[in-house]
C-alpha cells in the first residue's frame, strides 16, 4: 500500500484529512443543510396570514366582536385570510399600539361610529384596516358591485426555497474553493510542510493537481446533499439537465480554486489569509444574489455584479434548474465564459507568484 504514485498519494491523503475531521464535515454539509431547512420552513407557502387587530372593550363592542369572530372561523375553514382579534380595555389597546404589539386598534362608539387607530406607515396596519373595514361594511349591508376571486400562486419552482437552494449550492462551491484551497495551502506553508515537500523530488505540478482533484471530488457530495434536500424535502423540480449543472459546477469550482490559490500564493499567516478570504467573499455574499435577486441592485452596479464569479454561477444554476436552460442558452454560455476566464486568469497569475517557502 505504501508505494503510491506521488499524485495518487497526495490525492488520497487530502481525502483522508478531510473525512477524518468531523467538525469540517459539519461546516461543509451540516451547516448549509440546517440553513436551507430553517429558511425553507420559515418561507414555506401556507394559509395567507391573518390580519391582526385589537378591539377596545366597551358597551358597544360585543356585536363587533361577534361579527369578526364569525368571519374568522369561516375564513380559516376556507383557508382564507382570517382576523386575529384581541378584545382589551382602551388603556391596554393604546399601549399595545404604541409599542408595536398590535398594528390596529378598533373603537366602536355607542353612537355607532367606528374609529380605526393605526400608524399609516406600517403596511400590515393599512391592510388590517382595509380588511376589517370591508368585513364590517359588508356585514352592515354593503354590496360590492363587482365579483372578485383570488388565486394564490404556490407552484413548486417559484417559491423562495427554489430560489434559495441553487444559491446555497453556489455559495458552498465558493466556500469550498476558497477555504479548501487557500486556507489549506497557507496552513501548509506555516507548518513548513510546503517547504518540506519541495525538499523532495515530488513534482510540484502533482501537488497542486492533487488539491484540485480532491476539491472536485468533494464537489459531488457538496452539491448532492443540497440538491437532494431541495428535491426530496421541498419537492423542488429540476427543469434542466443534471449534467449541465455538473459542468457549470466544475467550471465554477475551478474558478474559486484559482481565486483560493491566488489568495494563498503569498500569505504567510492565517490572519492574512482569513482577511483576504473575507475581503473576497463578502462582496459576493452581498451582491451576487445569494438570498435575493442581484437584479435589485442599481443598474450602474450591474457590470461589476455580473463580473463576479458567484453571480454567474448562481445565474447559470438557477437558469438550468428552475427554467430548464440548455447548454446553448445565453445565460449558461455567458456564465461558463466568465467562470472560465476567472479560472484561467487566477491560475496563471497565482502560479507565477506562488511562494513555496
Amino acid at each position, binding site marked *: 500500500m*505504501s508505494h*503510491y504514485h506521488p499524485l*495518487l498519494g497526495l490525492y488520497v*491523503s487530502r481525502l483522508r*484529512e478531510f473525512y477524518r475531521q468531523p467538525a469540517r464535515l459539519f461546516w461543509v454539509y451540516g451547516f448549509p443543510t440546517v440553513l436551507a431547512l430553517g429558511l425553507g420552513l420559515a418561507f414555506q407557502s401556507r394559509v395567507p396570514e391573518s390580519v391582526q387587530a385589537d378591539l377596545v372593550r366597551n358597551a358597544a363592542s360585543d356585536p363587533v366582536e361577534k361579527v369578526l369572530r364569525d368571519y374568522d372561523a369561516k375564513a380559516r375553514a376556507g383557508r382564507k385570510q382570517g382576523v386575529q382579534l384581541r378584545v382589551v380595555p382602551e388603556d391596554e389597546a393604546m399601549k399595545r399600539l404604541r409599542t408595536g404589539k398590535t398594528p390596529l386598534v378598533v373603537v366602536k362608539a355607542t353612537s355607532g361610529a367606528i374609529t380605526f387607530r393605526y400608524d399609516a406607515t406600517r403596511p400590515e396596519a393599512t391592510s388590517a384596516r382595509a380588511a376589517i373595514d370591508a368585513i364590517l361594511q359588508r356585514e352592515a349591508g354593503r354590496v360590492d358591485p363587482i365579483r372578485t376571486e383570488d388565486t394564490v400562486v404556490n407552484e413548486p419552482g417559484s417559491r423562495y426555497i427554489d430560489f434559495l437552494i441553487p444559491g446555497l449550492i453556489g455559495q458552498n462551491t465558493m466556500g469550498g474553493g476558497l477555504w479548501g484551497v487557500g486556507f489549506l495551502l497557507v496552513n501548509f506553508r506555516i507548518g513548513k*510542510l510546503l*517547504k*518540506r515537500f519541495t525538499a523532495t*523530488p515530488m513534482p510540484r505540478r502533482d501537488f497542486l493537481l492533487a488539491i484540485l482533484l480532491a476539491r472536485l471530488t468533494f464537489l459531488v457530495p457538496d452539491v448532492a446533499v443540497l440538491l437532494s434536500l431541495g428535491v426530496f424535502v421541498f419537492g423542488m423540480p429540476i427543469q434542466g439537465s443534471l449534467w449541465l449543472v455538473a459542468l457549470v459546477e466544475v467550471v465554477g469550482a475551478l474558478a474559486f480554486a484559482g481565486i483560493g490559490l491566488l489568495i494563498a500564493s503569498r500569505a504567510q499567516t492565517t490572519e492574512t489569509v482569513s482577511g483576504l478570504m473575507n475581503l473576497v467573499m463578502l462582496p459576493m455574499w452581498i451582491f451576487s444574489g445569494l438570498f435575493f435577486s442581484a437584479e435589485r441592485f442599481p443598474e450602474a452596479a450591474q457590470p461589476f455584479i455580473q463580473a463576479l464569479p458567484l453571480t454567474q454561477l448562481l445565474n447559470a444554476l438557477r437558469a438550468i434548474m428552475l427554467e430548464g436552460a440548455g447548454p446553448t442558452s445565453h445565460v449558461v454560455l455567458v456564465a461558463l465564459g466568465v467562470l472560465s476566464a476567472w479560472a484561467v486568469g487566477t491560475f496563471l497569475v497565482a502560479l507565477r507568484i506562488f511562494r513555496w517557502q
Partner: protein
Amino acid sequence: MGEWAIRVADLRKQYPGRDGPIDAVNGLDLEVRVGECFGLLGPNGAGKTTTVEILEGLNKPTSGDVEVLGRRWESQATEIRERIGVTLQETRFPEKSTLLELVGLFRGFYREGLEPEDVLGRVSLDGKANSYVEQLSGGQQQRLAVAVALVGDPELLFLDEPTTGLDPQSRRQLWDVILDLRNRGRTTVLTTHYMDEAERLCDRVAIVDQGKVIALGSPADLIARLGGEHVVEFAVGGGEPPPDPSCFAELSTVLGTRAEGDGYALTVGAPHRAIPALLDYLEAAGRPLARLTTRQVSLEDVFVALTGRHLREEEADAARASKPGRRRRR
C-alpha cells in the same frame, strides 16, 4: 562522486534589511566527507540554517560555489533531491495522517527507497505506525521527521536542530537514532547549538559565527587547541572591586583566563598544580574563595574562547545580567 559529500567555497547570502543589506552567510567554506557526521555549531542567527537550506536547495545563494554529492543545484536539482533527506526545524505534518500513511506518502516521491514500516522501526516508532500524527509527543514528532527524511534512503541526511526543545530523555533517544545512522556509514550534516550534542555525535565540527566558519576539526581537536583539558571555575568574595582575569594568567599551568558570570574560568593543564597556586594567590591577596569547581573542557569553552560569547543567548544574557557594564570579549 569521490571523497566529498559536500563542497562549499566562499558562500554568501545577503538579505535586504531595514538598515542596509544583512549578510546571513559571509564567505563560508565547507567540505564534508562521505560517511562522516558533520556538525555545524553556532549561536542562533549565525547563518547555520541559511547555509543548510542552500545545501538542501531550499534557498539560493547570492554568490559562491556549492556542490552536493558531486552535483550542482542549478543543473541537477531533481537528482540531488532523490539522494538527500531533510528535516527542517519544526515541520507540522498533517495531524490526521497516520505515521505509516505519512511515511508512505513521502516514499512515493522517491524512485528508490526503504519500506515505510522499516523506517519507522529505525526510529523506534514501529509501535505507533497506525497512530495519528497528532497523538505523538514532541520527541516522537522529531523522530517521525527523521523517519520521513530517511524513507528515500538518502546518501546524505540534513538534520536542522533536531533536538531543540526536547526533554533530556527524548534527546537521548534521537541521539541513538543518529548514532545508528553514523554506524551505517551515512553522511549526516547536523546543525545544533548544543555543545554536548556535537561532542557526542559528530566526527567533525565547524563552528560558525556571523556567517563564517571560525574553527573546524574533530571535537577532540578543537578542545585540544585550547591547550588544557580542564577548566577551573571559581568566584572570590570580599567587597573590593573584582580582580582582572589577567591576574591569574601567571599561575602554574594556566593557559587561558576569562571572567565567567560572577566569577572566573581558567583553562589549565594540570589542576593539581593550578589549584594550590590559585589558593596561595588568593590567600596572599586577602580574598576569600566563594566557590571552586573543576570540569573537563567542552566545545562550549572553545566557542567562548573564540568569540567571547556563549552559544546560547539565554546563558549569555544571564552572564551579562550578573555583571553589568562589563564586556567579556577579550
